[in-house]
């Protein structure tokens, strides 16, 4: 009997380890020959823990599993109370275009055999037969843009590093996925870590870098463990080491762990942290592509950007580019979170409207109350009201509505959300997490909290002051922390003015 049960953090947080134990002990009790594979999550978090059982008809899904549902897995599967049918037929999964996440949930994350059986290493092998300039050109042609949030063309960044002259160059993977509502990096590292390793090796070939770092936040213990094990697997198999796959140049990877500083998701702050310093933002220029880690040319890319390189190299730039809209090419792993009925990861071409994402795919709120707002792009992203739900998902499309797509996380709020409180929280978070280097962020965020409190006390004259402060932060901050905190604040004021009315006076005085 072969059973898959995710090792993914979300599945574990919902009891997957207990289910695994129950399955194992029952199999032992009944003398059943069990193969239990701990896979990545299929991304349907509302169905986690999702068990899959191999049958002649394919993999059958059962979820959300409780320990009480385990014994029935050993009986008539069709009669199981949590039977969902064949996993691949589940409509939520079927409608997706899984390029970057093609293997997540399907394979054993640490099995190289599984990996290559599902197309793994094809991209790297093709890249090994090309010149660095050709690899860079292929990635550029694919239209891939930085999935961490900034949306900078990945190929252009690689080109800069590739053409820079230095004795050492580095590939740094930014896995400091600190934005609330985002978990794509975590899911990929836990569910298909070898894809990230392959992507980094391709970047190494393209740029002439021999060393890579993956900087993972300490809040992701499962991802850290799986990535460390995967690097060891890749080293043993000769994918990493003195010669990539035996006939390429040297490339190796080291896993580093962050220490709870949100600002280290900013690339220059991350580089300082990696060097063993305070995670203080660096002024640009110089660009990290020219003077990055230890002053050497460095590619700093998000997990999803690097993990998309293998499929681009394997299937060709035009295949990847064929998906999407406008200047947003390829697919994007949407992370639907917060107060939502069907939350999880949904990889699809750019271009769906917010309404399709929140209401059709997400099924509206978990509470069953009306959707009030959706914050797109994490703590530094704007709150979108229902009236802007026709906005198509793309970099320029969201920028045009004074928002951003960021790392493609969406937090759904129902009508009980207090947008003044959310604006205050944005400022409070910025104050806690500011690295302190630039004044608009360090002081502005503190003044921002105070000013929101004045509005809460009924002082509507403080609204223009807050607007003014936001403009200062937006144009005067060194990085996106101070520079983008105004997005949630201003969008809350603009789209939900009722929450900022003096009626709050008595409530706040309580």
């Amino acid at each position, binding site marked *: 009997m072969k059973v898959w049960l995710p090792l993914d*953090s*979300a599945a*574990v*947080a*919902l009891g997957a380890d207990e289910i695994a134990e129950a399955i194992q002990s029952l199999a032992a009790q009944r003398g059943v020959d069990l193969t239990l594979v701990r896979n990545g999550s299929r991304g349907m*978090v*509302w169905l*986690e823990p999702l068990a899959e059982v191999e049958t002649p008809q394919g993999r059958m899904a059962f979820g959300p599993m409780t320990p009480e549902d385990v014994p029935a897995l050993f009986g008539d599967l069709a009669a199981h109370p949590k039977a969902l049918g064949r996993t691949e037929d589940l409509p939520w999964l079927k409608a997706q275009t899984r390029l970057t996440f093609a293997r997540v949930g399907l394979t054993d994350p640490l099995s190289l055999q599984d990996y290559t059986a599902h197309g793994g290493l094809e991209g790297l092998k093709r890249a090994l037969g090309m010149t660095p300039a050709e690899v860079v050109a292929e990635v550029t042609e694919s239209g891939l843009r930085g999935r961490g949030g900034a949306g900078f063309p990945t190929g252009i960044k690689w080109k800069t590093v590739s053409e820079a002259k230095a004795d050492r160059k580095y590939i740094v993977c930014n896995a400091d*996925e*600190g*934005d*609330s*509502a*985002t*978990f794509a990096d*975590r899911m990929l590292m836990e569910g298909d870590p070898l894809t990230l390793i392959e992507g980094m090796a391709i970047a190494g070939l393209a740029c002439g870098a021999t060393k890579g770092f993956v900087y993972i936040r*300490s*809040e*992701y*213990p*499962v991802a850290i463990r799986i990535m460390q094990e995967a690097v060891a697997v890749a080293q043993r198999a000769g994918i990493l080491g003195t010669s990539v796959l035996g006939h390429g140049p040297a490339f190796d990877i080291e896993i*580093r*762990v*962050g*220490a*709870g*500083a*949100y600002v280290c998701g900013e690339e220059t702050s991350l580089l300082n*942290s*990696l*060097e*063993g*310093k*305070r*995670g*203080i933002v660096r002024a640009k220029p110089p660009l990290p592509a020219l003077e990055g*880690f*230890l002053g050497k040319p460095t590619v700093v890319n998000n997990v999803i950007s690097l993990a998309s390189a293998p499929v681009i190299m394997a299937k060709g730039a035009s295949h990847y580019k064929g998906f999407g809209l406008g200047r947003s090419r390829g697919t994007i792993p949407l*992370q*639907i*979170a*917060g*107060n939502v009925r069907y*939350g999880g990861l949904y990889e699809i071409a750019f271009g769906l409207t917010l309404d399709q994402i929140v209401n059709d795919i997400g099924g509206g709120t*978990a509470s069953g109350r009306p959707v009030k707002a959706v*914050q797109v792009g*994490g*703590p530094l992203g704007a709150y979108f009201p229902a009236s802007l739900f026709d906005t198509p998902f793309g970099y320029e499309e969201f920028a045009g509505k004074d928002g951003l797509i960021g790392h493609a*996380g969406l*937090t*759904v*709020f*129902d009508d009980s*959300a207090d947008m003044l409180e*959310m604006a205050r*929280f944005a400022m409070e*978070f910025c104050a*806690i*997490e500011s*690295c302190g280097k630039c004044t608009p962020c360090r002081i502005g965020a503190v003044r921002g909290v105070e000013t929101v409190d004045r509005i809460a006390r009924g002082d509507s004259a403080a609204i223009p002051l807050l607007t003014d402060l936001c403009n200062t932060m937006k144009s005067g901050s060194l990085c996106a922390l101070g520079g983008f905190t105004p997005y949630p604040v201003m969008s809350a004021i603009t789209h939900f003015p009722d929450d900022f009315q003096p009626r709050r006076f008595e409530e706040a005085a309580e």
Partner: protein
Amino acid sequence: MLDSAQTAERVTEILDRHRGMEGALLPILHAIQEDFGHIPQDALPIIARDLNLSRAEVHGVMSFYHDFRENPTGNHVLKLCRAEACKAMGADDLAAHARRELGIDWHETTRDGKVTLEPVFCLGLCACGPAAMVDGKLVGRVDAAKLSQIVGGLK
């Protein structure tokens, strides 16, 4: 309580393990915290001398990051997510419940030394919030009853 010679010996052993590493200070601090449960003040001058940094620089790095602690925690650490996706699912009420039940505020330890309460900004469990981490174990969809059960189970 450790005497300073024992501390020095263990810190030196950790430093030896990290020799040759590029930008080793964070891995060193993580290793020390894992070994001691916090970063003892006595460790700072030893690290500083070894890495050819000033003690102020090492203190500066240690104090910059939320993870590193100067003092030991209680027997258990309860982390509750305070970020947006969990707030959308009632994390604020849950945090208020936890603070009431434990009788402490954020970053504090109960008087019996049992539980330390820490805020965390995102555990990546944003589609199954509110989320918590109890001594490194992840828990999703935490409500008041589940939280009371968790706290009650801590010895």
